[in-house]
């Protein structure tokens, strides 16, 4: 196994080296480099179409990169995918679920697919459904779930095998505040116990409060990366983001939208 991306004793939870992807003539991700330290709570922020989903898909083995390499805890994702995927839990954005299964069946399915034994799966499914406030709807088909419930059941499927690295693409979208707080608690104690979390989000405030590291992506490039304090440099993360990314409209706005 190649270890050249693993500096020091403890390899980073995720090491991205020169990942690139283009769709036709559109460059979605333009050769990015990123180190996600083990045990960090890492935020990935960027405007719509920045390439966050594309980068995370390549880093987790869902989308084959045009160039570049990825290591998860020192394991080459595209070289030994099965081994790397055991270490990762993934909440993808914009993909369907096997939604003709009930919530309980879906999470069980995710566990069994990973080769876990039946009793462990059953115990963890019960815990997860209770913690995510889905126990009452465990027997409802996922197709009949609301958007927030769907997010939560997908999150449960990502957690079932107790991965060392969690990759969550927009985990808080359409989730209610109480469930969001519950999810944050779960993630915080997961990080405290040594796990690593990567979340992509548009909500700067949330990233600033929750994460210890952050990377700003726009147009397929990493504009800034490091601890949250390094990146924001005294400004609020939101202001720093706008400064980095630009694109604020300086015109007078929609004149006709004034009521007086």
């Amino acid at each position, binding site marked *: 196994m190649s270890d050249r991306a693993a500096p020091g004793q403890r390899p980073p939870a995720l090491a991205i080296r020169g990942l690139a992807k283009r769709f036709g003539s559109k460059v979605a991700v333009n050769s990015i480099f990123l180190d996600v330290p083990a045990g960090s709570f890492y935020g990935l922020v960027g405007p719509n179409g920045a390439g966050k989903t594309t980068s995370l898909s390549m880093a987790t083995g869902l989308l084959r990169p045009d160039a570049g390499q990825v290591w998860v805890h020192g394991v080459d994702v595209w070289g030994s995918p099965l081994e790397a995927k055991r270490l990762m839990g993934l909440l993808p954005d*914009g993909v369907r679920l096997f939604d003709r299964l009930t919530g309980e069946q879906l999470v069980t399915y995710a566990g069994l697919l990973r080769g876990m034994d039946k009793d462990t799966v059953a115990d963890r499914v019960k815990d997860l459904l209770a913690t995510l406030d889905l126990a009452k709807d465990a027997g409802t088909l996922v197709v009949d779930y609301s958007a927030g419930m769907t997010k939560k059941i997908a999150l449960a499927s990502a957690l079932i095998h107790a991965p060392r690295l969690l990759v969550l693409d927009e985990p808080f979208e359409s989730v209610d505040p109480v469930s969001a707080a519950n999810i944050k608690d779960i993630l915080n104690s997961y990080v405290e116990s040594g796990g690593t979390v990567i979340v992509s989000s548009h909500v700067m405030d949330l990233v600033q409060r929750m994460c210890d590291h952050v990377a700003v992506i726009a147009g397929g490039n990493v504009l800034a990366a490091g601890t949250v304090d390094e990146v924001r440099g005294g400004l609020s993360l939101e202001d720093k983001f706008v400064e980095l990314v630009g694109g604020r409209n300086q015109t007078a706005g929609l004149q006709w939208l004034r009521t007086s």
Partner: protein
Amino acid sequence: MQVVGLVIGGLYGLGILAMVMVGLVALGAQGPEAIGTVIVLAGSALFLGWLIIPVVASGLDMTLDPARFTTYSIPMKSLLAGLALSSFIGVPGAVTLLATVGTAAAWWQHPLSALVAVLCGALAALTCIVASRAITAASASLASSRKFKDFSGMVLLVPLILLGPIITGVTAGIQDLQEYLPSLANTLSWTPLGAVWAVPAEVAAGHWVLAGAKLVIALAAVAALTLIWKICLAKALVTPAYAGSSRRSAGHMGFFKLFAATPTGAVAARSMTYWFRDPRYGTGLIMAPLLPLVFVFAGSQAAGTGSLGITLGLGGVLAAFLIVWSISSDISYDNTAFALHLAAGVSGTADRSGRALAAGTLGLLLGVLYAVVGAGIGGSWALLPATLGLTIGVVGSALGLASVFSSRFTMNAPLPGDSPMKSRPGNNFPAMLVQLAGFAGVGVLIVPELVLTIIALATHQPLFGWISLAVGVVLGGALLLAGIRMGAGQYNRRAPELLLAVSADR
């Protein structure tokens, strides 16, 4: 565009109306009994149409959906009257009103009946509208539920497949029916369906008491329907348009309890669940078993009932093939849900063999069932091994080839949640070529069993049947294993590309 549609619809309606009026006037030359019979039968059919069409069409379009009025607060009485009146403004309502009032034209020889027919016609038209409104309101919450959509989409297919046998049956039945029609009309005239239409005929015959009784039935029917409509509408107005199925708590693991708790078993349990719960698979599961019956029917038309057993067995082979071959587009049917297999690092072997296990179980069960039933009916137990050999050979070979195909090609399949009959835009030609190549491939792979089975059936020599069975088990099993191995290797190499291909397909 809507205006154009309205004009075309209006012209179409006028055409129908003109034809009906000409028919009615011509009918008037007959005696009062014949006129009565025809109008009662046609009128009952009209009622049925107004009752059934909105329900069937509701899956496609809900123009009469009470849920649309939820946000307006209109007093119930005005709402009912307004909705009823507005129905007469549309083309179907207006044509119905003109045609029902126009039944007076058939009574040109009996002026008093004609006058009664005008009043009864108006009442009949109102009944049509109220009945269809009532049934739409009653089914509104039903029709917007996912289960109803899934179910109606699949069940509507059954008469379509059996169209041939049904038409033959009906045409044979109509000859007997002709003597039966007057008594049918008489019975109908005592039900809400036919009562209102029979009143003018009773008047013409001078049966005043009967005319009065039937009018009472008709009036009672309208009153009852209005009441039903009012109650259902009131209920529909306060319930949200879509209330999902009721909450169910944990403990219903279904097929997951049946299959082993391994990746392969889990994939099989998931596939099996989809065969029964996803209408895109469910339609296949409904259609496949009906196919041998259509075969038997066609066979019995052509060659009498002597070959019934054999036809049933061979039809079963085809049914089994249709089921197992459908896994050739399994990943296209998964669509992006397939990402879970990829993220979980499912091995190609587990993915391929799980899917094959589910479809193979269903296909084999169906094929063997038809072979055994066919042998029983035809009394040809000695030839059972021959059909079984072909069935097993086809299931094994088709599963093997489909396992290779589905890890190589994706196609433009209906999306999850879409109607199974929905055709998707896009270039389907390559996919059709792939399917044809697959059929041809299976055809080549099963040549040994096919030849042996044909020899056995033609010569009535059971020995060839036993050889066919042995070859089917060995060759089919070998091809299945080889197919899963090849498919698995391909899957391991190409899974990300498969996901990309199906995600382009959103």
